[in-house]
């Protein structure tokens, strides 16, 4: 079984971010960019499936501008066998970004182009736009089953099915899906490995397959999808209002009563 793993370049989770002056996005001009943490988890899971002898090849794919190649290099340094870059000017989040449907459209075309794949692994969401839609839309476009928010993944029945534990609001839910399927990963699925220097150096020399919406014959669709979503304004969350100090427990209880909490 071959696995396609979608990885996205986003603002590093630890970076301090600010909204840009035009209020169209966060300012990404001088912040550190990294692989989306959920994508790292997806890639880690794909690599573990390969190490366990279940997957035969792990292909990493990203959609984004030229700089997104860094993320593919990271993926190869972690252990991906092959990297596919679908070059697109707009990526990330905020105004002008590719909406999830467009990305799902591109990924589906990559599945056709570079397939067959037994599984597409992706993060449940990217930490820039927090959309949490791409995996689901990809499954819908392909008519594949989906198992989202995975906290454990095992391939069963001689490689024909996957049993996935999902983290849902009510607790854990276990589903069994026939393959091929789309699986999106939650935070507790695994702890991703870090790339070692020898692999990082080797990855710099490896080739990255470069595609585009045109070469994948989905440009019209993608353009249309992109026109469907308009980001009106990006703004800072309101500053947290300061709390109040109560004199004693009685006053505290009374206050809770007044607010209707008790």
């Amino acid at each position, binding site marked *: 079984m071959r696995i396609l793993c979608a990885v996205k370049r986003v603002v590093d989770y630890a970076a301090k971010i600010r909204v840009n002056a035009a209020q169209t996005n966060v300012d990404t001009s001088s912040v550190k960019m990294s692989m989306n943490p959920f994508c790292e988890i997806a890639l880690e899971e794909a690599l573990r499936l390969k190490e366990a002898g279940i997957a035969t090849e792990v292909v990493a794919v990203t959609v984004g501008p030229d700089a997104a190649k860094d993320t593919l*290099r990271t993926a190869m340094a972690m252990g991906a066998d092959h990297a596919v870059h679908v070059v697109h000017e707009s990526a990330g989040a905020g105004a002008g970004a590719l909406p999830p449907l467009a990305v799902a459209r591109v990924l589906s075309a990559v599945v056709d182009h570079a397939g067959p794949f037994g599984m597409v692994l992706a993060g449940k969401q990217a930490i820039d736009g927090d959309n949490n839609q791409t995996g689901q839309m990809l499954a819908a476009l392909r008519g594949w089953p989906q198992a989202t928010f995975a906290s454990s993944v095992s391939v069963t029945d001689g490689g024909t099915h996957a049993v996935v534990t999902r983290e849902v609001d009510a607790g854990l839910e276990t589903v069994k899906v026939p393959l091929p399927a789309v699986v999106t990963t939650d935070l507790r699925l695994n702890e991703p490995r*870090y*790339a*070692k*220097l*020898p692999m*990082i*150096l080797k990855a*710099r020399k490896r080739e990255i397959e470069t595609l585009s919406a045109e070469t994948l014959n989905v440009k019209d669709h993608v353009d249309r999808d992109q026109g469907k979503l308009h980001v009106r304004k990006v703004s800072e969350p309101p500053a947290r209002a300061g709390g109040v100090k109560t004199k004693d427990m009685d006053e505290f209880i009374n206050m809770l009563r007044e607010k209707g909490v008790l």
Partner: protein
Amino acid sequence: MDPAALAEFREAVRDFASRVVAPHAVAIDENNSFPSDVNLWKEMGDMGLHGVTVPDEYGGLDMGYEAHVVAMEELSRASASVALSYGAHSNLCINQIVRNGNPDQKALLVPPLVSGDHVGALAMSEPNAGSDVVSMKCRADATNVRGEAGYVINGNKMWITNGPTAQTLVVYAKTDVENNRITAFLIDKDMEGFRTAQKLDKLGMRGSDTCELVFEDCFVPADRVLGEVHGGVYVLMSGLDLERLVLSGGPIGIMQACLDVTLPYVRERKQFGKPIGEMQLVQAKLADMFMKTNSARAYSASIAKQFDTMKQAGGDLVAMGRKLRKDCAASILFSSEHATQCALDAVQLLGGNGYVNEYPTGRLLRDAKLYEIGAGTQEIRRILIGRELVRD
């Protein structure tokens, strides 16, 4: 080196250092030893850090000195004492073997050092031969034990970094006392007649183990000679040039760590109704720290780059070292002097907290001071630079 590749390397080492090394820095200082729940030598080996200047065939990255200085800096930023031990291992020991060893010696000794399974050390200083190292008393007499040619070593070595843990040690000893000729040897810790004395209790660089080595009729087979017999001074001096250059990254990392601690503090700490970082006298100190850090970094990088360019062109590294000897000495003279100053400024800017051990500033100061002593003192560096300048 390609700047983008070097930046990526720095990023990867920084990430490793902050994740794997930094969390242990306080305990390492307090306990005067590496952590026992994680093997930092293996962790660094797995990451690929021990072989920055080691050819591919021995498991190294073969990147060069510019990258090695960066690795030294980023590790020092996380824990100066771990980085000092790392420097002694990867440069003083491994790089000396790689540069001077024969293919058999390299194939045998280098791979386990690069993987971190073995720890390495280098020993030249003696209780009575520090700055005047060539006056060493440790001697190796040619001998023949049951048909096997070799040397018998007698004497002591002092202040040896990694001494307590090292499996492989590069050791200098006199093979011709009359003519003051020295030879370098590759010692294995299990050789009979070799032992280490008590681990030293130091002001700083705690956890970077230092001890005395004792040789009592220690037989060393002839194939354990590193480089030429009687050629030890050459091995030693050419190694010292590169040692000073690579170790200059240590103080640079300490200076960066001073900034890492100080900048958030002065932004937060308020006096007279505003952050102390807004006071101009405080800003003057910050500006000086910034300037010192960056000029030291730029100086060391420029020298390292010359070595790398030379090596890539197939040039003679030793001749290059000869040419850049005063620069190598000046790089660590400059960075270490400023690191002590930066650490003092960091203590000062944190005020009372800077003087309290809950904050890392005291450790940074104690660690920084070592670099004005180890790898030749500031005085010896100045003498060397001055002598070269007058001679030129």
